[in-house]
């Protein structure tokens, strides 16, 4: 029984959507290095839809896999749909996370939500 599921290992070793969006419509940052992980999400919005989602993450295997999965799940969704995304859904999509790594999935969803709130606060 491996510590991480195959899906987690795949998203960790080959993360999707890594990077920054230069002219992002919204940026959300959560966590900090004291806790051991930190995530920055960048979103591009068109007609109320997440046209592009990218991230940069400092953290463990789970943190990177969660970021990759959140970005993948969020892309193409409406802002409201993306705001509904929960950490449980992210963990489930990854085939589960070890109990002491569940907090990483909180971070991923929170970073995305923060980026959306940041976009909305600009009153576009």
């Amino acid at each position, binding site marked *: 029984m491996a510590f991480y599921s195959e899906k987690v290992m795949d998203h960790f070793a080959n993360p999707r959507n890594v990077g920054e969006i230069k002219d992002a419509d919204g940026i959300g940052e*959560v966590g*900090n290095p*004291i*806790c051991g992980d930190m995530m920055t999400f960048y979103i591009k919005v068109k007609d109320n839809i997440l046209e592009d989602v990218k991230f940069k993450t*400092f953290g*463990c295997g789970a943190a990177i896999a969660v970021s990759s999965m959140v970005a993948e799940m969020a892309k193409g969704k409406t802002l409201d749909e993306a705001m509904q995304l929960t950490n449980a859904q992210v963990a489930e999509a990854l085939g589960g996370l070890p109990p002491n790594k569940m907090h990483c999935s*909180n971070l991923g969803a929170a970073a995305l939500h923060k980026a959306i709130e940041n976009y909305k606060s600009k009153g576009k």
Partner: protein
Amino acid sequence: MKQIYFDNQSNTKIDENVFKAMKPYFLDYYGNPQSIYSLGSVSKNAVEEARKQVATLINIKPEEIIFTSCATESNNLALKGIADAYKKSGKHIIVSAIEHISILNAARRLEKDGFEITYLPVDKEGNIFEEELKKSLKNDTILVSIQTANPEVGTIQNIKKLVSIVKSQSKALFHTDAVSACGTIPIDAADFGVDALTFSASVMYGPKGAAALYLKKGVKITPQIEGGVQENSKRSGTENVAAIAGFAKACEIAKSEMVKNAEKMRNLRDKLISELPKKIPYIYLNGSKKNRLPGNINFSIEFVEGEALFLLLDAKGIMAASGSACANKNLKISHVLTAMNVDVAVGQGSILFTLSKYNSEEEIDYLIEEFPPVVQKLRDMSPLYSHFLKTGSRMKAGPGTDYDDNDHEHCDICDEK
């Protein structure tokens, strides 16, 4: 795929000759050492011969050896057993802040039971401050426990000197956890002048399941496992004869090979310590440069996290460890790095390679080749690294720094909430 094992501080591969020495005690000589018929006697002799061999490694008498199941048990027996036996003389115990968790948790238990514990600080290389030790000693100090060498950062203490400080100023007994040093570098418990010493088979090419506590003749101890007459009633329970026989063989091999093996490991260690920084910028050696275990390499790799590092290394067949928060079961950064005052953000990128006599120069070269791209891959994903590239500034973690009022709202694990 290649399998390269660089986590020898946690456990070593067993030496084939050790395994051979153990085999007869599984299927042929299975008697209980306490039985007096012939099959029991064979087992009894094996244990007593082993006692001589194990004692020889650290230059003490066989009757001063108590066999235990593991180093954690030896450390628990030393701390709790001595504390209980001497509690009438005093309630004060000194341990270092970088001890193995079995010493620290045993000390915390004693604290709950009314003992007063002083946790000695260390400098940024992990050396005990001798002045702090002097200041900490009191009339009612009954025990000092300081490890011989730290398995995580490799720093070797000057135990002989620390013992002389303690003995010249107090009546306290001195225990040292020598697990990471015994069998790797020559250890002479008599010359150290210690009253008790922990060592273990499982990190010196011996089996899991056998360790020892050296207890100087005349030192009292309260058993922590009560039962029959085994180990002079100081540690009851049927002897693990096969593992004890293996431990003895491991000590015999160590005595003859140790110096040669250590020299080989030191050369490989020094190659890594000098070559990795040439290929990877912003990395910092943890631990002592001068007094360092032969096989210990511990770097903090800035802007990345340690668990991610060793998972990517594992995918290339390289097994290593990390002191990062995420790599620890309790989600706290290693207490050793914390005590050494390593910046938390930087320490999260700690990676630990510990070598054995079985590692080769080819393996070291393979690591030097494979490790830099792994670091680069994670740095390319890291918001801390991109911030640094853009601004030239490092975000420091900790109170009063960039992160002091940062977002801890989503953090279930840190104390800052």
